[in-house]
C-alpha cells in the first residue's frame, strides 16, 4: 500500500432520533428497512453517492 499521506476534508453529520422510543418502535423499523433497501438497490445497480445526491429526494411524500 502507498505510504504517501495527504489531507482529506469531509463533513460528518451525526443524526439521532429525538425520541429513542421512535427509533426502537415501528417508525425506526420502517425507516431502517427502507434505507437498507435503498442501499441494496444502489449497490446492485452500481449507483454512486454523487449520482444519488443529484437526484431530487421526495422520500417523505
Amino acid at each position, binding site marked *: 500500500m502507498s505510504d504517501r499521506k495527504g489531507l482529506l476534508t*469531509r463533513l460528518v*453529520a*451525526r443524526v439521532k432520533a*429525538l425520541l429513542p422510543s421512535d427509533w426502537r418502535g415501528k*417508525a425506526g423499523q420502517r425507516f431502517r428497512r*427502507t434505507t437498507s433497501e435503498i442501499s441494496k438497490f444502489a449497490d446492485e445497480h452500481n449507483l454512486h453517492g454523487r449520482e444519488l445526491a443529484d437526484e431530487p429526494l421526495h422520500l417523505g411524500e
Partner: protein
Amino acid sequence: MANANQREIIKQGSTQWNAWREKNPTAKIDFSGADLRGTYLHKINLHEATLRNANFEGVKLSSADLSHADLRGAKLNHADLSWSDFSEAVLIRAQLKGANLGQAKLPHARLQEADLSDAILVGADLSAADLTKAKLVNSSLVEADLSWANLTNVDLSGTDLTQAKLKHVNLNGSSFSSRTAWPQNFDPFKHGAHKAARFQKSANHGDFSITFDREVSPDQVKRTLTALGDFFRACGGIGFEIDTELQVLVVEEPTHV
C-alpha cells in the same frame, strides 16, 4: 456444447488435451456450462474456445492459452490463472473472486461487470481492457498495466494500485475508499473517480452518522438530511436531531492539490 469425447479428453489433463488439439486444429471447442472443477489444466490450449458459464472454480489454469476465448459468465473463483493469456478474451460477468491472475495477459479483454473482488492481479497486463462496472474490491493490482483501460463505474474500495500504470485510464463514475492505494503523484479525481458518502449506524441507540466527501455540495447535504428527516416523520417518528462536524484527516493516499 462439447461432445462426450472432448469432455473425456479434457478431464485427463492438459497434456492429453493439447496433443488431441494439435491433431484436430479445426475442431470447434465448446464447453459452455461444463463443470470442470477438479481438473488440472496448467498450460492448456483453449484458444478461441467457447466456455460460457463453465465452472473452473479452484482449477489450476496457469500459463494457459485462453486468448480470444468466450468466458462470459464463467465461474473462475479462486482459480489459478497466473501467467495465462486472455488477450481479447470475453469475460463479461465472469466470477473471478479471489482468483490468481498474477502476470496474466489481458490486453483488450472484455471484463464488463466481472467480479474481481480479492483477486490477485499483480503485474497483470490489462492495457485497453474494458472493466466497466467491474468489482475490484480489495484486489491487488500492484505493478499492473491499466494504460488506456476503461474503468467506468468500477468499485475500487480497498484496491491496491501501487506502481500500477494508469496512463490514459478512464475512471469516470468509479468510487474508491481511504484504503485504496494509488501510484505516487496520481490524482484519481482528475480521472473522474470520486469518493462515495459513507453511512454508519449504531442500530440500537437511535443514532447514526453520514460522512459526506468534499465533492458533495452544501445544497446536496442539506437536501439529503432534509429528505431523511421528512421520511422519518412520514414513518411516524417525531424527527431527528442533527449535529455536523467538519473533519480534516491525515490519510494514507496522495495529496490532491
